[in-house]
């Protein structure tokens, strides 16, 4: 039975222990785990629009953990294990469906990169298989594996435990859980600046008044640079539009998730039946939540070549979100700048899948005022030390 309201709609108080900026998946999950795992309930999540209405509402909901490097395997696999128990944990259905993901290889270098990644995944304890084209076709019968394609399918990595979830339900589940534990979820409350005195965070400014807090957590995705700029912190981030689209509702035809970096498309079929497709980012910087049409066109061309059965489907809706892309296609997480400021950014095109994992680790980081071991490799200092976590192969186009 559903409760009458999932969360209260409180006026912001004048002070909190922790302020989380951004009421998307990451911000809501962080608030939830702060309260549930650490008993820190004097927390506000400040959202400039509505809960889960930014990139949380705009992503293609793909969940997987088959990244190359140990640091990435650590955080994404932690997230995947939490996904596997999330509905029980939250007491809320999020339509998590482990239907697997195929990452296609279209060239010899794709094949080498894919096989290498499968081996790396297995060493890291992550389920991964290398499939030849016939095996990939068995997993996804509508996939065109003909050798006549412009970019033929030469093989694919396969992670059976990967899948999709219903993004809105994930946001609502975390919001409901956090609210029930006493967290204030404040919508229509844009943060215009982080305030600092004597090298330490003192709170945030909003049109609804200043709100004091000695710990401020930025979960603002594409707008992180703007917020960090208010305390003079320059981050290695570039904000880009990322577009996606859905078809009308169709009979179930697509049993898994298929991603292709080389031809720039990723496709799954949502529970209701619409085909959900994403592409690469638009090349230019942008905060406009829309991109250029030719990017959609190229993505559709790629999808039609791989899935001829889509030829008669119609695009129902396209949209864009603003993603913050880092130089090594890995997130930037941890304390930075003035004391009490915590970053969670740089997830670029792939933050959704990390939602439970980063919420868990970021809450732990804030509670103990030091990086959780799983996010320690993702600190901003790596751009000085050179210890980059290069996930371009696993993440650059289709995260």
């Amino acid at each position, binding site marked *: 039975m559903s409760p009458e309201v999932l969360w209260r709609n409180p006026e912001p108080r004048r002070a909190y222990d922790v302020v989380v900026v951004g009421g998307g998946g990451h911000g809501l999950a962080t608030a939830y785990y702060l309260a549930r795992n650490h008993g820190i309930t004097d927390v506000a999540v400040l959202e400039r629009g509505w809960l889960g209405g930014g990139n949380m509402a705009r992503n293609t909901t793909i969940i997987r953990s088959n990244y190359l490097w140990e640091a990435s395997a650590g955080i994404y696999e932690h997230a995947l294990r939490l996904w596997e128990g999330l509905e029980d944990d939250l007491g809320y259905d999020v339509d998590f469906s482990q239907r697997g993901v195929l990452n296609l290889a279209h060239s010899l270098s794709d094949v080498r990169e894919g096989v290498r990644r499968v081996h790396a995944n297995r060493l890291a304890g992550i389920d991964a298989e290398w499939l030849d084209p016939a095996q990939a076709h068995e997993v996804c019968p509508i996939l065109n594996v003909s050798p006549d394609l412009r970019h033929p399918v030469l093989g694919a990595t396969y992670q059976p435990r990967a899948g999709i979830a219903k993004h809105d339900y994930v946001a609502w589940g975390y919001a409901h859980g956090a609210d029930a534990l006493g967290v204030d979820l404040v919508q229509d409350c844009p943060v215009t600046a982080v305030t600092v005195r004597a090298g330490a965070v003192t709170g945030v400014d909003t049109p609804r008044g200043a709100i004091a807090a000695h710990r401020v957590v930025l979960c603002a995705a594409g*707008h992180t*640079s*703007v917020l960090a700029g208010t305390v003079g912190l*320059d*981050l*290695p*981030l*570039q*904000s880009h539009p990322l577009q996606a689209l859905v078809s009308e509702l169709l009979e179930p035809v697509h049993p898994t998730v298929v991603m292709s970096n080389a031809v720039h498309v990723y496709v799954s079929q949502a529970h209701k039946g619409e085909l959900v497709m994403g592409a690469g980012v638009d*090349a*230019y*910087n*942008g*905060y*406009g939540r829309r991109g*250029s*049409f*030719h990017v959609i066109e190229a993505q559709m061309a790629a999808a039609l070549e791989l899935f001829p059965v889509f030829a008669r489907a119609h695009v129902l809706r396209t949209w864009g979100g603003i993603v913050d892309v880092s*130089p090594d296609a890995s997130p930037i997480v941890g304390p930075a700048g003035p004391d009490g400021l915590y970053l969670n950014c740089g997830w670029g095109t792939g933050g959704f899948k990390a939602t439970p994992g980063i919420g868990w680790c970021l809450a732990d980081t804030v509670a103990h005022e030091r990086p959780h071991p799983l996010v320690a490799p993702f600190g901003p200092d790596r*751009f*000085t*030390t*050179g210890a980059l976590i290069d996930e371009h192969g696993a993440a650059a186009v289709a995260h």
Partner: protein
Amino acid sequence: MLLIPCPWCGPRDETEFHYGGAAHVAYPPDPAALSDEEWGRYLFVRANPEGAFAERWSHADGCRRWFNAVRDTRTYEIRAVYRAGEPRPVLP
């Protein structure tokens, strides 16, 4: 799709162009003198404003020349284009 006014060829479709990111990033005069932090900033940190942004474009499928533009990253309106080497124009 953006309609980009190449300073040499006039307005052309975005698909003819290649994006080059932030403009006016000078190579350090003495790279060896930089600290690790300064070198990291030079390599990785670029302006990422919400608003007017000076950026490079190459007319890759046209005259193949690089030039700079000032574009608003909220509206995507191109406020000015100018040739490489020229200073960023002052706009109202």
